């Protein structure tokens, strides 16, 4: 599974993307796995209210299942326009 990070989440984790093997069945489980890895991940995911998630490039929820998902992206609320 490909994981992408944007904006300050990318900066905190120090990576724009990475390939991850996981048995997580929901976004929440995936976040818990990532946060448990290292301090920088824990820091990046410390406040989920400030984070949005997209599954295969569609905005989604943290309790959404990961069945068949190939790309997960984490980013702060959008500020375009």
């Amino acid at each position, binding site marked *: 599974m490909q994981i*992408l990070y*944007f*904006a*300050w989440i*990318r900066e905190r984790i120090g990576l724009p993307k990475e390939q991850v093997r996981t048995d997580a069945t929901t976004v929440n489980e995936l976040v818990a796995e990532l946060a448990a890895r290292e301090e920088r991940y824990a820091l990046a995911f410390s406040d989920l209210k400030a984070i949005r998630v*997209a599954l295969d*490039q*569609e*905005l989604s929820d943290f309790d959404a299942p990961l069945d068949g998902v190939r*790309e997960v*992206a984490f*980013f*702060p*609320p*959008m*500020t*375009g*326009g």
Partner: protein
Amino acid sequence: MASPDIRVQEAAFDPGAELSAFTPLAAQAGAGAVVSFTGLVRDLAGGLSRMEIEHYPGMTEKALRKIAEEATTRWELGPVLILHRYGAMAPEEPIMMVATASPRRRAAFEAADFLMDFLKSRAPFWKKESTDAGESWVEAKPEDEDALSRWR
């Protein structure tokens, strides 16, 4: 109806040149009302040296297209333009633009307003400002998210 003209680009653009190109298309489609919105880099706190916009290449055009298509199902629209830059830009430069056209002026206004509300909170762009004091990511405003409820 022509499919929406969606552009995500690093290059600067001229809103006037875009409106010059858009207006005849609107007229040919039978529209009597054309509304455009242009967003400019604004030096809010003073001392802004540049603005940098990050986006999510795979998702951005898809999200913009979805927003444009939603607008065309809600209102009777002629051509629709959404143009958004990414990368580095200087104060006062145009960041983005939308244009709508309709036989009815209310529809043209509402559709442009709708596009902007959804673009703000549903298209994957993030702004970072560089000032003398350093760099900082622009925070989303709660009212931008709240604005979406106008369109339920």
